[in-house]
């Protein structure tokens, strides 16, 4: 905090308060999935350039024409657990319910595999 002193001899005691929140910048900043609306402020080409620089070879951009969306960015590692098309369908179904064409939505996807194996004793 610091005092702002005006040159006015009739000092009224005006002050400014600055608060700072420091947090870690997420790398990559788009988590697992990014849904890009058709009229969003950022388009797939710009996102492609961003991920090429920040997280090369970790994401795939899929152009879609589904509801309000123009493209979906998916983290490659998710495709190891579930097929890309299956995941894409689920995400688009849910995304279409809440998003508009101007939206850019990021999604965190947790996939838990439940495995039960029966073995002979």
């Amino acid at each position, binding site marked *: 905090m610091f005092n702002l002193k005006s040159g006015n001899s009739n000092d009224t005691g005006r002050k400014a308060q600055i608060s700072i929140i420091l947090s870690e910048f997420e790398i990559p900043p788009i988590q697992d999935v990014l849904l890009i609306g058709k009229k969003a402020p950022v388009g797939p*080409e710009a996102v492609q350039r961003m991920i090429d620089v920040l997280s090369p070879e970790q994401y795939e951009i899929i152009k879609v024409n589904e509801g309000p969306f123009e493209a979906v960015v998916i983290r490659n590692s998710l495709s190891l657990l579930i097929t890309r098309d299956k995941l894409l369908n689920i995400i688009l179904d849910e995304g279409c319910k809440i998003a508009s064409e101007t939206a850019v939505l990021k999604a965190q996807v947790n996939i838990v595999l439940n495995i039960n194996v029966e073995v002979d004793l």
Partner: protein
Amino acid sequence: MLKVFDVMSSPVITADVLDSVSKAALIMEKNKIGGLPVLDERKQLCGIITSRDVRRVHHNRIVADAMSKNVVHVNKYTTLWDAKSILEEKKLERLPVLEGCKLVGIITRTDILVKIGRHTDPLTGLMTGSYIRYLAENILKAGNELTVIFFDLNGFGLINKKHGHVYGDRCLKIVGQIFTENTSGGLYFPGRYAGDEFIVVTTEKKDDAGLWANEIIKKIVNITKKKGMPVNIAAGVAGGRRKNARMEIHLSATVDDLINSASLASTLSKQYCVPVTFSN
């Protein structure tokens, strides 16, 4: 033939693929233009952005996210007529012009229509005599053979007096259409010289040109007869027998001589009632 480079705007105002859409919009507004070719990091053409694209997307986007990719473009040596066909077929307003891989200009539909309109006879749709003369000079300049065929309708003044000028205009229109339909191969270039006179230039030798003229005359006689407006036409052929290269400085005079000789030969055709006469 008029080529794209005769008409295109150059140098071209462009946008960079990483420019913001709002910057592209500003460039368009400042220069009063409706579209910008987009260059990539290697300065190669990679898209085109129009004022319509700008209206369609968020202004924060980069040009790469608003432009049309797979740009339709033309080579600078493309003829204006081919460029016009491409614009009409693809329903486009402008075409970037390339020389090799380098962007060298841009041509719009309006540029083409204005230029073509200036050289087109409004009645017959054929090129004007002055344009055919320009074309003839270019044929000579390129070192090619040049043959001039001059066509003159027989007794057209009488047709006008007997049936009226509207009827006469219809006859001319039909004749013009026959020339257009029979010169699509790119070997013969027809134009309306003046009144009831037509001119065709070609790089074919005079004998072939004479045969072609004979065929055209037969068609004109038959078709106009069928349409109930019979006309007869006579032709004169000049040139088409060059042995040595011409001096470039005499191109214009040579073209004048050939047109004059062909015109006199067509008068002889009328006098002797033959379809085609070759000039000496």
